[in-house]
């Protein structure tokens, strides 16, 4: 494959529309329907845990402009509960990690009982959203409030109320593994042992665009659905499972999406009830989520407690690493196996760790559901391990860099087998090259002379400067679910590439066109890439898990290669020659006759050779995930009188692959770091003791603004992956994974003379002030 486009920082085809405000988000599609589309609104529970004694919808149903009002119980006559989408745990993986995970099913709307504030309990369909919301106010609900479970530790205690009767002790999933690679010294005297508890708060993705969909019944009895989802085929599969509709009768298309971050890879009751109602009423119906709904009912993430012990020898060499962690999953988490096991396996970090003992438990509580929020357990695991390394270094009196240099996997260690399988059943093998080099590159991103200059330039004694570091690992591009791409040569000579996942800013239409143009050896403007259509490709999952470049990109490559081969064969057959060669811009027959793609395209329409040859499907599923490693470095300024931390400089050194488009790759890292800075300093979704959310608006839930984010310096160390035909590694989640740990490390450094040790994220100003006072007490 030539590399004319791949690797080039070409302009994104998405940009003109983004900059001119002419992308078509779900809300734009709905607006364009005018009065043809009805609007739904959901009545949501005001209680965290209660029995519903009575719901009276009679007044609401009579309001002018209201078409239908249904309670959860009424809806349940037509729709089954959502059963988990997992195709069964991979047996080797389940055995190695001792996974216990009782299945649950989740009703599309609450039936007789509510389990979190924000749970949908009734739905109104009306001429407009205004009328629908007015009708919601007409509905009377009588609750019998019961004790909620709001604390993860208490959820596990004997006698705690059960969030789901079928899950004893609220233990949604348990994992445990131990690996004893080399015996510990008999006498631990002189060894360094650090123990602590680290917490990362409940956080939410906060996409600028909230959720939304529009469902329209077709004349043939089928259903067209436009849904701001990362996984159109997942939505289709679940919808057909709960309605018994035939798969081929439902088409799910994802329009342009304004941010997703895993929140839109979950399948929600609202996404199932709206198509059902559209079918029953026989009209298009839209539901466009508002910010309150998004904050209280769209899936959240993080919310972990790690109780850890790290043992090193007196020089700082890691001997044993132990962690017992708890994940507060909220009311449900369909990705709980992923989130909890991701946490467990990423706790192994980028180091040589001879002995490991890890247990993890995910618990149900009466809070909003959770899912795989960007990073999905990795930022939390990184925080626990990296904080512990800093603690050990402090106790020994060595630098935070030195302890990492001592333990990190070096060129001679890699590739490195961890001796346990990943979720797809493949053995975990870090397929990297030199993590020490990455660490050293990170150090150069904020050089010592710059640190000295900033420190000396800070004359106000209340402002302290500190520098911190954290390394992190990520498994990207996993199987076993495949991605496919349908490549079609059109009569005009254009290549049409259909892909299946929904995109929310990852520039798929640009980067996959780069891949296809190089594989087909044609100019990139002869290629059109479409995304997110369930009917476009035979098999697709979602734009999740840093997998799209690896899986979709490889499927596109394989699809174009297959098409080229089909065309070559067809030309041989049609022109009776063995000599057909694929060249720049087309094909050459018998070393003399040149046929452009346009010429070949004409054959599709004009000749009688059949058109099957003009379409090919590429399919790719990797044998194992391909790993990336990063080292994050942060320079912060902490105001000791107010506790406010400002990130002044930030750098990410990164061992990934070559970039399909360097600007797109850098954008993924920068956006991820912005999210990570929010995680580190600002974001905490809070509930009070009776399970009422107290941060259900953006004045109380603080996401960072441009004023909080410095420019991010990036160093790429490129190592080709051998695990996919494109040779690429994922990058989508690398930004947020190391940020909270690096920033906490920098705050410790800034406040070293005050004895402050950050043990949680976010480290808001109140917490820092408390820590300063606490350290003095």
């Amino acid at each position, binding site marked *: 494959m030539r590399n004319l486009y791949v690797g080039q920082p070409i302009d994104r085809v998405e940009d003109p529309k983004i900059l001119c405000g002419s992308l078509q988000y779900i809300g734009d599609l709905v607006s364009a329907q005018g009065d043809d589309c009805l609007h739904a609104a959901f009545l949501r529970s005001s209680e965290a845990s209660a029995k519903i004694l009575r719901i009276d919808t009679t007044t609401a149903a009579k309001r002018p402009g209201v078409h239908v009002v249904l309670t959860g119980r009424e809806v349940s006559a037509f729709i089954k509960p959502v059963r988990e989408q997992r195709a069964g745990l991979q047996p080797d993986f389940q055995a190695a990690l001792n996974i216990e995970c009782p299945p649950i099913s989740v009703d599309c709307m609450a039936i007789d009982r509510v389990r979190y504030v924000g749970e949908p309990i009734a739905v109104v369909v009306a001429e407009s959203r205004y009328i629908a*919301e007015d009708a919601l106010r007409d509905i009377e609900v009588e609750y019998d409030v019961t004790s909620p479970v709001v604390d993860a530790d208490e959820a596990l205690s004997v006698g705690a109320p059960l969030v789901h009767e079928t899950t004893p002790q609220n233990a949604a999933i348990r994992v445990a593994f131990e690996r004893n690679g080399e015996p510990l010294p008999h006498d631990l005297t002189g060894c360094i042992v650090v123990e602590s508890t680290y917490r990362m708060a409940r956080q939410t993705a906060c996409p600028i665009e909230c959720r939304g969909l529009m469902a329209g019944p077709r004349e043939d009895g089928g259903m067209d659905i436009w849904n701001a989802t990362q996984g159109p085929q997942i939505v289709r599969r679940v919808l057909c499972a709960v309605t018994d509709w035939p798969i081929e009768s439902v088409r799910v298309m994802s329009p342009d999406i304004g941010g997703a971050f895993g929140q839109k890879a979950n399948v929600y009751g609202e996404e199932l009830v709206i198509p059902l109602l559209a079918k029953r009423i026989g009209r298009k119906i839209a539901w466009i989520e508002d910010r309150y709904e998004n904050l209280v009912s769209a899936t959240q993430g993080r919310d972990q407690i790690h109780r850890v012990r790290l043992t090193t020898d007196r020089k700082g060499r890691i001997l044993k690493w132990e962690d017992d962690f708890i994940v507060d999953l909220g009311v449900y988490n369909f990705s709980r196996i992923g989130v909890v096991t991701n946490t467990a396996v990423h706790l192994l970090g980028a180091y040589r760790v001879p002995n490991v003992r890890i247990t993890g438990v995910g618990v149900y509580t009466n809070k909003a559901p959770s899912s795989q929020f960007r990073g999905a357990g990795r930022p939390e695991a990184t925080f626990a391990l990296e904080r512990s390394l800093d603690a050990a270094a402090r106790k020994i009196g060595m630098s935070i860099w030195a302890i990492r240099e001592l333990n990190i996997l070096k060129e001679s260690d890699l590739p490195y087998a961890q001796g346990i399988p990943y979720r797809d059943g493949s053995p975990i093998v870090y397929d990297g090259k030199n993590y020490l080099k990455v660490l050293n590159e990170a150090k150069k991103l904020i050089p010592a002379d710059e640190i000295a200059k900033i420190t000396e330039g800070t004359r106000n004694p209340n402002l302290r400067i500190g520098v911190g570091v954290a390394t992190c690992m990520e498994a990207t591009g996993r199987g076993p679910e495949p991605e496919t791409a349908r490549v079609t040569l059109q009569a005009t000579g254009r290549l049409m590439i259909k892909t299946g996942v929904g995109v929310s800013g990852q520039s798929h239409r640009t980067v996959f066109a780069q891949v296809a143009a190089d594989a087909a050896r044609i100019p990139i403007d002869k290629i059109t890439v479409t995304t997110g259509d369930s009917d476009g490709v035979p098999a697709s999952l979602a734009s999740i898990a840093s997998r799209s470049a690896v899986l979709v990109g490889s499927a596109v490559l394989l699809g174009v290669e297959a098409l080229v081969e089909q065309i070559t064969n067809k030309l041989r057959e049609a022109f009776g020659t063995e000599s057909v060669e694929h060249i720049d811009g087309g094909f050459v027959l018998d070393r003399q006759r040149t046929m452009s793609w346009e010429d070949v395209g004409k054959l599709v329409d004009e000749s009688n050779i059949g058109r099957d040859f003009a379409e090919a499907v590429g399919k790719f599923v990797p044998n194992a995930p391909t790993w990336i490693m990063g080292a994050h470095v942060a320079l912060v300024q902490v105001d000791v009188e*107010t506790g406010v931390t400002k990130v002044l400089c930030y750098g990410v050194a990164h061992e990934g692959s070559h970039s399909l488009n360097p600007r797109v790759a850098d954008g993924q890292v920068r956006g991820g770091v912005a999210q990570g800075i929010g995680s580190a300093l600002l974001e905490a979704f809070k509930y009070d003791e009776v399970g009422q959310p107290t941060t259900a608006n953006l*004045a109380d839930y603080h996401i960072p603004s441009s*004023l*909080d984010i410095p420019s991010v310096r990036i160093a790429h160390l490129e190592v080709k992956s051998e695990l996919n035909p494109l040779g690429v590694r994922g990058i989508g989640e690398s930004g947020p994974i190391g940020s909270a740990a690096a920033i906490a490390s920098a705050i410790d450094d800034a406040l070293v003379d005050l004895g402050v040790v950050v043990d949680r994220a976010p480290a*808001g*100003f109140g917490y820092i002030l408390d820590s300063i006072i606490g350290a003095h007490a």
Partner: protein
Amino acid sequence: MKLPAFEWLPVKTVAECVEALSANEGVELKIIAGGQSLLPLMALGMASPALLVDVNGVEGLNEVVERDDHIEIGALVRHNQLLARADRMADFNILSTAARHIGHVGIRNRGTLGGSVSHADPASELPAMMLLLQATMVCESKAGGVRSIPSDDFFLGPYTTAMDEPEMLTKLLIPRPVRTKFGFSELAARHGDFAAAGAAVAISYSQGDRIEGIRAVTFATNPKPTVVSADAALPLGEKAVSVSWTELAKSLSSSISDGRKRELAKVMLSRAFRQAVSGVENAY
């Protein structure tokens, strides 16, 4: 988060407005100007007035008029006007310093001084500024005509002022400060957020550079913006260089009951004093 149904009544003059307020006595009504506090409250279902009297079209209330000994600011003057006029109102620069901390550009483009002062959020900057600058609030109603309320008597508690229900705030009169230096400091989780604590100070000097008066206000520290210098021992007659401003900040903040707020108010006061004395704004 759609607004509940309400009647909307636009008015063009102050007379029309006070007439409407009087005619609808007993109706749950609100005057709407910039709407930057009221509309979110309505969208969240925390306020549902039956009638909104819209004063955005009232002529003559969106101007700043400079007089010899004071300025008159119309109740409809937007926060951004306070920023934009900074160069022409050098004596009142503290207003633009404070206004910079209000929300973001979109909010400052719409939010009004009269709206902010009437809303009387204890964490708001501008009510505290009115208190610091000893403004006079000019209110009007059909029955009571025009009356003036000094800022010291105006703010009664969270979201509560001395205005009567059918009254509207029309303008704010601010005396021109003489030989006075100001300082302002605010702590918020992010720039533009509701303040966690804030302070503003005014130090006036005699011809001989001796301190003649000190007025200090804190906000987001008590149920209403509060003058903390009223009954305090102040270093009057001293020169600024010989005053321990940190100590003064500590003593002025000592009456604040919440411990964390007290600590933060001390820091904010101390920074505001340093700013007033040095003329240099601190990083925070």
